[in-house]
């Protein structure tokens, strides 16, 4: 575990959430959530369905506007800025360069009717690359990195299996070398062996690229394998945070204890 701690050498956090709150009418989506995320750090947000995990993820990635609180992000130029104060052009640029977003349903994150190569190349073209050969070469390299046969580069993702789609989605997000990737249940709906392979791949890429990741999952196994730190949510609140092994092996809150003890023994 010791080799995983990478944030000690970088003093400024990459992302800071302060008092994030969101109401859906009278219902609470998420309330007063605060944390810091450092470069190269993987944070798992766990909790049962309806606990506010996805709301929190959307608030962090500024797809939802918070009713209270704010998110600060250290941009590539080193200046930390309040995401709510960015204009839309800056936000869109951030989204297609410095950030990635991996959806649970790959169809949401991919263009299902255009080829795998174009899916990976889209971000490059969006930031102004205009050389077909180079774009295609980058796409092929990324397919290789996510273990997709490069012979499939011209096939549409609708001909891909669930696991391949998910890996393609990851390649599409990583091609611009983002520093922060949001993942919403990336292993949901995949069978166990495919999940294992995907987690293995994610683990490797996260370490190779020094990615910061916020991963939402209800699978504590995923959290244990991938994350450095955990944030346990219940009824829209963050009830417990800490190092992953610490939270999982010695949970403090009764709810966390219940969650941990509900894992079926392997």
């Amino acid at each position: 575990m010791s080799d995983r701690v990478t944030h000690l050498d970088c003093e400024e956090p990459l992302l800071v959430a302060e008092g994030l709150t969101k109401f859906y009418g009278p219902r609470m989506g998420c309330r007063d959530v605060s944390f810091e995320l450092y470069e190269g750090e993987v944070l798992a947000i766990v909790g049962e369905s309806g606990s506010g995990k996805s709301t929190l993820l959307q608030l962090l990635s500024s797809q939802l506007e918070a009713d209270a609180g704010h998110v600060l992000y250290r941009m590539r130029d080193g200046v930390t800025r309040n995401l709510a104060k960015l204009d839309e052009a800056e936000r869109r640029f951030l989204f297609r360069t410095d950030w990635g977003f991996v959806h649970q349903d790959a169809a949401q994150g991919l263009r299902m009717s255009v080829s795998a190569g174009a899916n990976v190349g889209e971000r490059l073209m969006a930031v102004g690359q205009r050389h077909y050969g180079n774009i295609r070469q980058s796409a092929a390299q990324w397919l290789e990195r996510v273990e997709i046969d490069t012979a499939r580069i011209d096939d549409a993702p609708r001909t891909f299996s669930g696991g391949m789609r998910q890996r393609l989605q990851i390649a599409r997000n990583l091609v611009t070398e983002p520093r922060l990737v949001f993942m919403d249940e990336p292993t949901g709906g995949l069978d166990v062996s495919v999940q294992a392979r995907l987690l293995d791949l994610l683990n490797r890429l996260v370490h190779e690229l020094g990615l910061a990741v916020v991963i939402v999952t209800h699978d504590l196994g995923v959290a244990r394998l991938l994350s450095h730190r955990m944030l346990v949510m219940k009824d829209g609140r963050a009830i417990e945070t800490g190092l992953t092994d610490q939270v999982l092996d010695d949970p403090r809150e009764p709810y966390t204890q219940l969650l941990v003890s509900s894992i079926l023994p392997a």
Partner: protein
Amino acid sequence: MNAPAYNFAYLDEQTKRMIRRAILKAIAIPGYQVPFAGREMPMPYGWGTGGVQVTAAILGPDDVLKVIDQGSDDTTNAVSIRQFLKKTADVETTTRTSEATVIQTRHRIPETTLTENQVLVYQVPIPEPLRFLEPRETETRRMHAHEDYGLMHVKLYEDIARHGHIATTYAYPVKVDGRYVTDPSPTPKFDNPKMNNCAALQLFGAGREKRIYAIPPYTQVVSLDFEDYPFEPSRTDETCALCGADQTFLDEVIIDDKGGRMFVCSDTDFCETNRANTSRDAPWAAAGARGHV
């Protein structure tokens, strides 16, 4: 001939003012699609209702009007619109490109180079170049606003990946004045270079979608491409069987049921003028000699 029940050029003056304001705005922001309150015209959508409204709004009594459809002056669409404006505005009409001051067109740009005192009015079926890539109007507007045009290149990438070259042959997307990606209406990409730095004002009217856009005279118009797959205006490698021109856009005409065919200029005025100038008198013999019959 002039039916007294109609205002000059069919539309009432208030409507013309509204359309002219849209045109002025379109000229001020080259390539930007300006919404306008398109009127019902006495012809079906898809027959050039947008083009006719633009033409009616800019037409003056001294104008000389030419209407072409696929380059031709004598097809139904061209004849009907020409007669309509002749009847309602009593303007002089012509088939000669060089004599016209206003040219309404469907799917072609005349071969003859246009001049400063001419206006080319395009009939546009679908003004949004991003439409088939992104169906949501709210999203395409946002993409235009942020110059978020990566998706357009995704389409060209797909073309090359599937066909080995950019297989889009008409409605080939252009960037106007370095800013807006614009649909040149379904003209063949052969015509795209003519739009660049054109001396004439180019106006585009889309009746069903109620949009007007414009390319002012002498504006830069660049066809989108890749550095290693540059834009190429495509042309059939044939000569016109009637006038012998080898630099024009050709129509392929089936002439019997045994596979016989001939290629002729799609621009009928250019072809006729060229024939008169070169005094070619027996085009059918010439076609036979070329082995197309």
